[in-house]
Each structure stands twice: as C-alpha cells, then as structure tokens.
C-alpha cells in the first residue's frame, strides 16, 4: 500500500520563557520539546490510532501535520512531497486533502453561523468551482446522518453527538484523502460514542479515505484502528498492528496503559494499579529511557542510556532496551 502521510523525525518545540524573564534566570530551560523524533506512516485508506495520556504530545503532533503549529525538526511528507507548515501558500493545497476534526466540537464551530454555512465554509475558502453550495450542504449533512432541517440551526441548538457530526461534515467537505480526528468521542455518552465511531468507520470505506484518530481512549482505538502508535512524553514508544499490540504489548508503558483500562466485569478487578507515579514534566525529562521512573522492569541501563527506536518484526517497532514481546 502507498504511504499517504509520512512523518520523518518530526519535532515540535514550544518556547516556555522569553524576554526579560529569560535574562533573569539564565539557567532555566527556554524550550520544551512537545514532540520529539516522531516517525510514522499512514497508508491510504487505513485507520491509524495515536494514543497517549494528557501531555504526551498527541494533539501537538496532529496539529503539526497540518501546519497549525510549526515543526522545529524533521519532515512531513504528504503523497511523497515534503510540506512545510511555515509557508502558508504551500499548505493550502495540502489542507484540501487533509480534513481536521477538532477536539471540542461545539467550541470549534462559530456560534454565529448556521450549520448550513459552517459545513460549506471549507468550500468557500478553498474556492469550489462550479459547485452549488446549497446542494453541497445538503449532500454533506446527509452523509453524516442528519436531515436537512439541521442546516438552519445554530451550534448551541445541537447535542454533543450532533455537533460531532457537523464536525465530521466539515472535515469531509473537500473530499479529503485523510481525516485527522482529535478525540472524536471525548465527552460523549457511550450510547452516542458508538454512533460517531460507526459513522467514521463507514465513511472511511465509502469515501475511501485514511483516518488518523488521536485519543486517550484505548477501547475506542482498539475497536476502530488498523495500526496504533503509543506516545509518552512526546515520543512514539511503540507502534504496530492494533491486534498484535493489544495481544502482546512490547513496551512496559503500553502494557501498563492497556492494563489500566477498567474492565466492565467485577470478576476482572485488579489487585493494584498497573502504573504508579505520574508523568514527569516536559521541562525536566528523566535521563536514559524516559519511562524508567515509572517502569516496573527498569534496570541500570534504562537509567543511563536512552533506547533507540527499533523494528520488532516487520510491522512493529518499540523503543525499549528490554521489550516484553
């Protein structure tokens, strides 16, 4: 299969302190690396799930792909061509092909516009030649399973699930080859969560597009994605086919994360929390393997030497000195 999106050693760096405060405290770090050395590929038509806890850099990574935050290292390639988020004119044609669903569906919709004008906004911006906008709005709203009556409504009149659907419609407006969905199910009730995921899955097939789902919700990722990547402190620590990773996680963090999801069965209660401690601060990264402060299997080498990301079989990769699988 062809690689649609390739990230090659991508890094995103945020400035944390500047100006006169930086002069007063010369030793304090000036930058934090929100994403470090991220290498991943999304193939045409597949669903890739990017998983991590808050602060792991998953949202920053997603935003860096479409150039909403500039990257400081590495390269993003789309259909084999390097794209540079810093040059707006270079981004425009790429943004037609990459649809984005933002985290908070209600906050990402302008409260003063009707659903009808919101869903065709991408068409208006990117200049849809010879397209009847009203007809397009009807088509899009129907694709996401709402009826045409919604086109006259305003975002505050929508329920969480409906707002999510409008977000999907907007992402699909330009017929993208890739849709990036940032936490598509956060804040939804379980009975509605399924609706949104089923919609995304069926659209992926009917529109023949790839999906990059960014989420902290492991059951969701397990259900919808073909391959997953696990992020910790801005690094991809493990990647592989979803089924294999869940069956036999290689990185101790992945294993702990999977074990931390409570099972809806009182007979499967856990004796102790699988991962102790908290995520360290990005300003003060641990030495060696950055997970060693919380890892049950950490040895001397883990504290001293950072593990390189290496292949594990032909489809998987992990950055751990002593992988479990």
């Amino acid at each position, binding site marked *: 299969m062809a690689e649609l999106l390739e990230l090659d050693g991508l890094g995103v760096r945020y400035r944390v302190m500047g100006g006169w405060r930086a002069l007063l405290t010369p030793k304090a770090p000036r930058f934090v690396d929100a994403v470090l050395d991220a290498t991943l590929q999304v193939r045409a038509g597949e669903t890739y799930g990017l998983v991590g*806890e*808050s602060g792991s850099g998953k949202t920053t990574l997603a935003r860096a792909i479409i150039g909403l935050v500039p990257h400081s290292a590495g390269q993003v390639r789309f259909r084999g061509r390097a794209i540079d988020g810093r040059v707006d004119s270079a981004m425009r044609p790429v943004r037609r092909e990459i649809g984005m669903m933002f985290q908070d569906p209600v906050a990402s919709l302008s409260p003063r516009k009707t659903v009808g004008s919101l869903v065709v906004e991408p068409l208006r911006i990117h200049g849809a030649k010879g397209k009847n906008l009203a007809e397009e709005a009807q088509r899009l709203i129907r694709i996401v399973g709402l009826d045409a009556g919604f086109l006259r409504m305003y975002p505050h009149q929508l*329920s*969480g699930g409906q707002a999510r659907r409008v977000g999907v419609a907007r992402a699909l407006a330009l017929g993208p080859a890739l849709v990036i969905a940032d936490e598509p199910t956060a804040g939804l*009730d*379980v*009975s*509605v*969560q*399924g*609706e949104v*995921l*089923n919609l995304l*899955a*069926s659209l992926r097939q009917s529109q023949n597009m790839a999906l990059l789902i960014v989420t*902290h*919700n*492991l*059951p*969701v990722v*397990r*259900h*919808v994605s073909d391959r997953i990547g696990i992020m910790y402190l801005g690094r991809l620590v493990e990647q592989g086919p*979803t*089924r294999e990773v*869940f069956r036999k996680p290689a990185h101790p963090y992945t294993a*702990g*994360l999977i074990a*931390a*999801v*409570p*099972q*809806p*069965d*009182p*007979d*499967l*209660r*856990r004796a*102790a*929390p*699988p*991962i*102790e401690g*908290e*995520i360290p601060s990005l300003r003060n990264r641990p030495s060696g393997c950055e997970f060693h402060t919380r890892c049950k299997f950490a040895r001397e080498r883990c504290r001293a030497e950072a593990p390189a990301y290496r292949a594990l079989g032909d489809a998987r990769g992990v950055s751990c000195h002593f992988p479990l699988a």
Partner: protein
Amino acid sequence: MSAPILQIRCLNVAYRSRRGRLRALRDVHLDIPANRIVGIVGESGCGKSTLISTILGLLAPNAEVASGGSIQFDGLDLLKATVADWTRIRGPRIATVFQDPMTSLNPVMSIATQMIDIQYRTSEPAAEKRRRAVEMLDRVGIPDAAVRIDEYAHRFSGGMRQRIAIAMALLMRPSLLIADEPTTALDVTLEAQIVHLLKSLKRELDGSILFVSHNLGLIAELCDEVVVMYAGEVVEHATVRDLFHRPRHPYTRLLLACDPARVAEGGGPLQTIPGGLPDLAALPQGCVFRSRCPDGIDACQAQQPMRPAAADHEVRCVRAVHHG
C-alpha cells in the same frame, strides 16, 4: 445487610422552567447500607446530579421537591434540614469529592490553612490539627506531605489535587462520601490509582461511598452494588456481579453492550441505542424507555414500579420480572 445509613423514599424533584415543569427525578427509592460502595451509573440527563444535589441540600432555587418524599440520614429527614442542621452534616457527616478538584480547593489559601480550617469544630491546638492533616495527606499518597502541605493548589498536578480533595473530604471521617465523577478529568493510569486509593481508604475509614460515574468499567472495579438511572428514574438496582452478569432491564443490557471496552478487536459496528431521551416536561405514558426499547410489549404503556426480580435485585421493567 446492615441498616442503611441513608434512606431515600419516594423522592420527586422537578425544575420550574419556561417550558413547564421538568420532572428530573421521579419516584426514587434508594438505600445506602453502612460500609458499602454504591455506584450510580447513567448517561447525561439521567438525574445523577439532581440526586446528589438533593442529598446535599444544594438544589437550584427553581427546583421543587414534592411533598411525601424523605431522605433519612442520622435520624433526620434531610429534606427538612435547617441551616444549622446542614452545618453539622455537610462536611463532617457527608463529604463530597467533585470532578474538578479546583472547585473544592481554594487557590489563594495554602493546603495547610484549608485543612486546618475545616477542623474548626474540634477544639484542639492548631499543631494537632496540622499533624492530622499531614497524616491524611500522607495516607492519600502525597509525597513529602509535611513540607508540601504549605504549598498552594496550583503547585500540584491534577492527580495530586484530586488526592488532596479526597484527603480533605475524609479528614473529618464522614460516614458517607459522595464521589461525583472523581476521575473523569484524569488519565487512565491516574484513574486506576485513585480508584485503588478510594477502595483502600474505605476499608480503613469505616464509611460508605456513593460513587457516581458514567464509566461502567470503574463501577465494576469499585462498587458493591449498582444503581442504574435513566431519564430521572432508577431502572435497576442490584449487586455488582448480578448487574454485570445478569442485567435485567433492557436499558442496562444495551448500555453494557455499547461499552467499547467490552468488545475486543473490532471490525463490526459498535452497539448504539437509537433514539433519544424523552422530554422531561412532557413525559410519555408508561415506561420512559419504551420508545427506544427493543422488546417492548403492550403492558409497557402502563407506569412501571420497581419490582424485585431476584434476591437483592430490583428492576423497573414488566418483562424483566416475568422472563428473567
């Protein structure tokens, strides 16, 4: 089962609104036995928050509690409690942990000041109160508690703040702790830690916990018994194993089936519950779940009471009782 510490009888709460009276809670009967963890599960709009606010006497001014109901606690009907009663109860007898710890921690007071202040009813030297506060922080897993107690809330991470909120809630050894979605804002690894903390604290502190959550996995992990709510009614109440292994109400069954944590690797579409909540201002006749229920019959058009379906298992469904 021992005598309940909280006994809710025939509770009906409605909100006055421009669209008429929204009947947010209807015919709620609920016992919380001593030393048990009772879970309340339900989706948004099911009445969880109204129920908690009613127990705590914190209902909005436009709420009306119908006469005829009662909430017995400590030999007192909480629905008739006076301001003086509430000062005695809220905090020392019934404590609460909310979803966002920043709503219960004061940002401009150090943790020490807050934790000493809430012991104002005990006449002990401040040093003793401080010692007790440090001990409690230590117990909930705040590293270096004796030093960090003098810091302010913003210096702690989200998980640590929630631990502090729990320590503050338990400081006065309440007999009932209400935990309202205490882990929803936390990551899954921290969530597991907090749930284990609550479990071990409950063993030591000799009280009951009312644990409100929409997360079925957490309910299964922590609770002894579970109450399922839908559109303002309790529709099922059972022991945790019964509820997860032999759910009787069609809504409970569908809710469990929807949880993606249940289905392993996907492929097939996820279960959903088509339709939406009924309008609380114009409730349909009969069972409230009727319009979405896959196995409704004619008898569902009549109002359903809670009925025993098995030992320690009650359900509000005419079919569930007969067909088991």
